[in-house]
């Protein structure tokens, strides 16, 4: 037998046995069904995630606000202090000038 005949024999069409379909269907029905999550679990998970996100956003906003507040107080302290110092010096010079004249 040459190679061509061997290939033809190996690749020749074969009909499945008559009970093939029944066997496949039996195996499919015997396989365990995938475990489906209960719908309420998804809702609870989504709700919990939303609450966590909202709480995080509120906390971050609070942190930003407190930080902005302390920066404003620091800025006013520096700006006001410098301005106040300049005003006092002007007042002092003015007083000194008046007392001389």
């Amino acid at each position, binding site marked *: 037998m040459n190679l061509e005949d061997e290939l033809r024999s190996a690749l020749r069409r074969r009909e499945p046995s008559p009970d093939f379909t029944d066997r496949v269907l039996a195996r499919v029905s015997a396989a365990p069904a995938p475990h489906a999550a209960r719908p309420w679990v998804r809702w609870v998970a989504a709700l919990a995630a939303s609450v966590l996100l909202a709480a995080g956003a509120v906390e971050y906003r609070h942190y930003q606000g407190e930080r902005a507040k302390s920066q404003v107080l620091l800025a006013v302290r520096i700006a006001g202090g*410098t301005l106040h110092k300049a005003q006092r010096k002007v007042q002092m010079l003015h007083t000194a000038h008046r007392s001389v004249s």
Partner: protein
Amino acid sequence: MKTAAFLIAFLAFAGLSAGQQVKWNYDKLAARASETVDVSLDGSLLRLATKFLSDDDADEAKVKKLVAGLKGIYVKSFEFKKEGEYSAADVDAFRAPLHTPDWQRIVGVHSTEDGEDVEVYIKNEGKNIGGLAIIATEPKELTLVNIVGAIDLDTLSELGGHFGIPEVEVEKKK
């Protein structure tokens, strides 16, 4: 048509420039400073801060009122380990953006005794004050303040007088 376009462009530019902070380049000094204070608050952060300032605390209530209408507060303060870390040219560079018709120097104090200089500039917007700029120098310290918006100078000075800044410093020399 051309006149209308020019007018729109002019008004847009005027609107932008009215609420702008002074363009100061601090990079050179920041590199040499041993300590830096940097406060940069735009309008939205100022509005947020006012929500957190208490009405019950007298000082905080005053600050809240003071900053309520402001568009920005920018403070930079540099401390140096030794004298001579910044030059007169550096200070001139900070003065340069204030040499425009909008800005007017209202106070210039020079102390040869302790080497302190303070210059206060205000931005005129019609009859109102549209902004404030302060350049304060000491041998080992340089402070720049820019407040954008209508600021009440008396309240700011009053708050600065008892808000952690010792006002006896000047009076001691009497």
